[in-house]
């Protein structure tokens, strides 16, 4: 019959066309992209927080509870020695570093030598005074002797007068010697004061911990010159603070600042470990709203927004937080905002 020899146009071509159609349809349906698919490998998810209906979000930076103390230097000079390394715990008054004190020490020695010299001069002056006093006594006794002889012939009038002159000369000598002694003594005292002041300076060359706490940063090394004049933007020489407990300073956008329920604890999680959430206790709100502070140390990153800074106390050490770390924080909001939904 007619189809026994397969015709190309009526047999193969339509069959091939239908086969192609089915193939093309499969191709089309397979090729459709799925724009909604989630990642095959989910990265660690972002901040998930309690889904209470009212909350305010903020970003913050961890800081010591004492806030960060930039320990300064009283004296300018070369750094002679640094006694601490970052992470050290120091107690109040413990030396942190010293500047070069050689000049001060030689000044002290000078003063001490001058002091000794003054002491010798004092002894000398004292001897002179004794001498003068002895001379005076002899002269007075001579004069008394002459005055006690009634016979005029035995002592001439002239001799008496001479003896009187001797006495007054001896008196003058003694006064002079005494004045000398006084001068020498005051010189000695002056040298003593100078030595003392050199000692105080020597002590000032050593910076000491103002409070007990942890050394956070040491930015000086022996041999560096350290200026205490007008070092406004420079890094602090040594930075320290009380890190038990830590505080966190949270910036809240001015638009949302009025919504924060002040006094309630906040939920805080560090960047990169969003799963680890801790509850931080309210400490205070800064009375001054400040421009949004750059969080990435880029001078360009300021924005024309003011923020309310809230201080919260983090729970005791878990090793999760470090000073300067950025955190995400969620504070409960007052119930003033009504969310209209649906």
């Amino acid at each position, binding site marked *: 019959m007619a189809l026994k020899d397969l015709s190309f146009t009526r047999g193969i071509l339509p069959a091939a066309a239908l086969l192609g159609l089915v193939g093309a349809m499969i191709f089309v349906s397979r090729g459709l992209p799925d*724009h909604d698919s*989630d990642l095959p490998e989910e990265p660690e998810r972002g901040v998930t927080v309690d889904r209470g209906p009212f909350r305010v979000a903020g970003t913050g930076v961890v800081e010591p509870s004492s806030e960060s103390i930039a320990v300064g230097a009283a004296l300018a000079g070369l750094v002679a020695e640094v006694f601490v390394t970052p992470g050290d715990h120091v107690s109040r008054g413990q030396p942190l570093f010293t500047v070069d004190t050689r000049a001060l020490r030689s000044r002290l020695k000078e003063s001490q030598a001058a002091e000794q010299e003054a002491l010798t001069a004092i002894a000398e002056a004292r001897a002179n005074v004794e001498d003068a006093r002895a001379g005076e006594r002899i002269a007075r006794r001579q004069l008394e002797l002459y005055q006690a002889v009634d016979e005029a012939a035995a002592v001439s009038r002239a001799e008496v007068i001479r003896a009187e002159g001797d006495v007054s000369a001896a008196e003058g000598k003694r006064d002079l010697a005494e004045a000398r002694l006084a001068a020498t003594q005051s010189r000695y005292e002056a040298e003593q004061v100078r030595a003392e002041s050199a000692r105080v300076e020597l002590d000032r060359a050593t910076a000491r911990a103002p409070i007990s706490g942890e050394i956070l940063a040491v930015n000086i090394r022996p041999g560096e010159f350290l200026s205490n004049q007008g070092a406004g933007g420079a890094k602090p020489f040594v930075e320290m603070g009380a890190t038990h407990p830590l505080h966190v300073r949270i910036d809240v956008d001015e638009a949302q600042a009025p919504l924060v329920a002040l006094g309630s604890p906040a939920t805080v999680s560090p960047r990169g470990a969003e799963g680890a959430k801790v509850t931080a206790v309210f400490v205070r709100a800064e009375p001054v709203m400040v421009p949004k502070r750059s969080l990435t140390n880029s001078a360009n990153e300021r924005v024309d927004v003011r923020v309310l800074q809230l201080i919260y106390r983090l729970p005791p050490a878990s090793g999760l937080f470090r000073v300067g770390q950025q955190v995400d924080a969620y504070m409960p909001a007052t119930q003033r905002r009504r969310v209209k939904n649906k």
Partner: protein
Amino acid sequence: MIWIALRMLTGDRQKFYGLVFGVAFSTLLITQQLTIFANLLERGASGVYNVPDADVWVMDPATRTIEVAYPLPSTALDRVRSVPGILWAVPHLRATASVRTGAGNLEAVAIVGVDDSTLVGLPPRVAPGKVAALTSPGSVIIDDVGAGRMFGVGNPVIGQRFELNDQRAVIRGVTDSFPNFTNQVTLYTRYSEALSYVPGTRNRLTFILVKGDGAMTDQELAHRIAKISGLRARSSEQFADDAIEYILENTGIPMNFGITVGLGFIIGVAIVGLTFSLFIRDSIKQFGALKAMGVSNKAIRRMVTAQASMIGLIGYSLGLVGTALFVWGFSNSATFKGFYIPWQVPLISFSAVALILAATSRIALNRLMTTEPAAVFR
């Protein structure tokens, strides 16, 4: 009679192939052009499709598309995060910069800064480097099409360094992502790195990506975010549509493709219409004989319909197969990467083919219907 009709049709090989070719060609033209058109449009929204994780995009009210964006102050992130119903919200930076390639050419690149800790914002498929490589400083991930453009297709890319706004950048990975409309090189890096790569303006946070907690639809969530934060919030689909609309409104592309598709249609009508009416005219005597012999108009109509259907089916199939082969064949080329045939396109071209054949067979039938059977005796 359909059996006879089909044999009548295929009996004249030349006209049959002409008809099939006409249909196939206009199917190919319409389908292929519509496919390219649809895919080009979708490329405008590729930035959105490359981040399937985000439910909602939040942006400055002035922002129109992913490429026409106005940055936000960084505190906007906190404002968005404060909206209830959000699972997470992360910053997303989009900016352009210039790099010098190894060959010394200047290349404009798009910088995408993804969230530092979660890397949300990276395209889903990153190969062959690891996503984790982004955590090392100065590292970027390049899109595969861009890699080909910058370093030549097939050349090793991982470990290549270049200068980006005075900073060193090292390529640590290659994404498998949808290229964007202009085929621009895209570099993905962490948000904090991106800040240093992009020349400074005050505000640089371009988008905030939000995932809802699933309690409401993306659109409702977007609406709520917009209401509470005062920013513009669009669900992923809306934002993708925005991008497509932007291209439609601001380029001549729809016009060009519209013309080509129209030409395809006209060519189809011309070739198929002419050939088919030629075919009918040539066989009008045979049809007249059939009519005289007592074949009803209804049967003749069925015959012609069968002929048109066969032409349509074969031609359409071949055209569609051609388009599929085209898309498949070019799927590895950078220009056509990620191209696919939207399911609506074969339907549209099918309707076009049906319309062409319906019109031409209608005209042919008119002639047959009015043919007097008595004419066979003259």
